[in-house]
């Protein structure tokens, strides 16, 4: 597991690029691709001395990353146009928000779907406007549809019929079945406007959501990138506002995300060397399981440790759903797989 260690050392600035051999670099490149972080690494090392072939590959990755960022921001612009006629306001989330706000973690960050937050009372209207503007349902399975609407924190995903890009319309930042329930009203009320004309979450909310997305919203796939987001966000916010950690504490409490945010901060410290204030700078023996999951990729870029991944998959469902519901969901999934 040298490659993943090199990757995090390079990102954290703990390792001189000149010390890596050709074999080390190809391991780093493979792992960075596996974590969807090649362009992010390329930005981080833009001014570092590099072997010529690596410098060329990183140049390509930055250029392609810039194109991908434009494409992601264009989806936000098209959603804005679609929702503008009905004056439906929305807040950008995750990667697109970081790019729209010009935050440092957006440099080379891969952005998949467009995630937006719409106040729950506007969800129906937003859905209509998007359907009118060329988005369509991805799946028409009635069980999945009901599942999304009743239990998740979003509409079933929509895909644009000509641009082939997905939009996820959320009305809160964690599934409603999740055992913690963030306060969506506070998220919307305190949202801020970027210079590019899009609303994004306030800094503390953005960090809370980043932590929730990392730890409470899935099986930690792509976890290293999400942790990098959290690390860059909190580092930059603290640099601009020395009281940020205190503000983040209060906000995490309000959303019921204190444990999640603190764990994300400890992982950012352990993986990327983040400096934490005294009351955040604790030890929790369970963190090492999360570390193992985050760094479970071998030198050939393979996501390893199958059992650990399964455990996290079950854990992520457990977090999201009360046990009764979980049993029913897994049963239905299983039966449908059997039927195919």
């Amino acid at each position, binding site marked *: 597991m040298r490659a993943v260690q090199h990757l995090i050392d390079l990102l954290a600035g703990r390792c001189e690029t000149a010390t890596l051999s050709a074999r080390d670099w190809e391991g780093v490149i493979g792992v960075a691709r596996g974590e969807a972080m090649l362009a992010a690494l390329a930005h981080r090392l833009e001014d570092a001395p590099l072997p010529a072939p690596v410098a060329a590959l990183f140049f390509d990755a930055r250029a392609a990353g810039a*194109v991908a960022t*434009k*494409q992601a921001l*264009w989806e936000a*612009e*098209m959603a804005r*146009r679609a929702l*503008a*006629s009905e004056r439906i306001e929305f807040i950008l989330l995750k990667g697109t928000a970081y790019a729209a706000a010009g935050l440092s973690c957006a440099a080379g960050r891969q952005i998949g779907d467009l995630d937006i937050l719409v106040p729950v009372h506007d969800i129906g209207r937003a859905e209509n406007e998007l359907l009118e*503007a*060329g988005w369509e349902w991805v799946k028409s399975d009635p069980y999945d549809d009901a599942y999304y609407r009743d239990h998740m924190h979003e509409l079933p995903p929509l895909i644009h019929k*000509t*641009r082939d890009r997905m939009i996820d319309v959320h009305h809160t930042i964690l599934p409603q079945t999740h055992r913690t329930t963030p306060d969506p009203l506070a998220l919307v009320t305190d949202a801020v406007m970027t210079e590019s004309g899009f609303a994004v979450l306030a800094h503390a909310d953005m960090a809370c959501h980043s932590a929730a997305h990392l730890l409470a919203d899935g099986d930690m796939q792509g976890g290293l990138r999400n942790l990098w987001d959290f690390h860059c966000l909190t580092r930059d916010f603290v640099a601009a506002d020395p009281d940020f950690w205190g503000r983040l504490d209060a906000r995490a409490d309000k959303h019921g995300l204190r444990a999640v945010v603190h764990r994300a901060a400890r992982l950012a410290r352990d993986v990327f060397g983040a400096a934490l204030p005294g009351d955040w700078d604790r030890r929790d023996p369970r963190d090492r399981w999360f570390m193992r999951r985050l760094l479970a990729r071998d030198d050939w870029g393979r996501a390893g440790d199958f059992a650990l991944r399964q455990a996290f998959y079950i854990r992520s469902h457990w977090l999201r759903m009360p046990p009764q519901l979980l049993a029913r969901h897994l049963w239905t999934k299983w039966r449908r797989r059997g039927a195919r």
Partner: protein
Amino acid sequence: MADPTFRAAPAEALRVEPLGEVTAIFDRRSTQTHLVVSPLPEILAAMGGEACNASLLAMRLAARFDLPDGAETRAVLSERLRELAALGLVEPA
């Protein structure tokens, strides 16, 4: 009939390359390529930087291309404007 007003993409956002019978338009904001035929490039050119509806557009194009300035022309232009809006090349003003 409603005649909504649109504004074309700023000229510097578009790279327009005629390729024989079609015109390839590269939108630098979206990075999308649109392959269009007449009269879409002419409509974009006629709109310039100003907000424009089908009636105004019909007047401008009539002056340049010898078009009948009637209800039918306006209806066609209205339809083309909606297509351009779907591509993101014009937006409601």
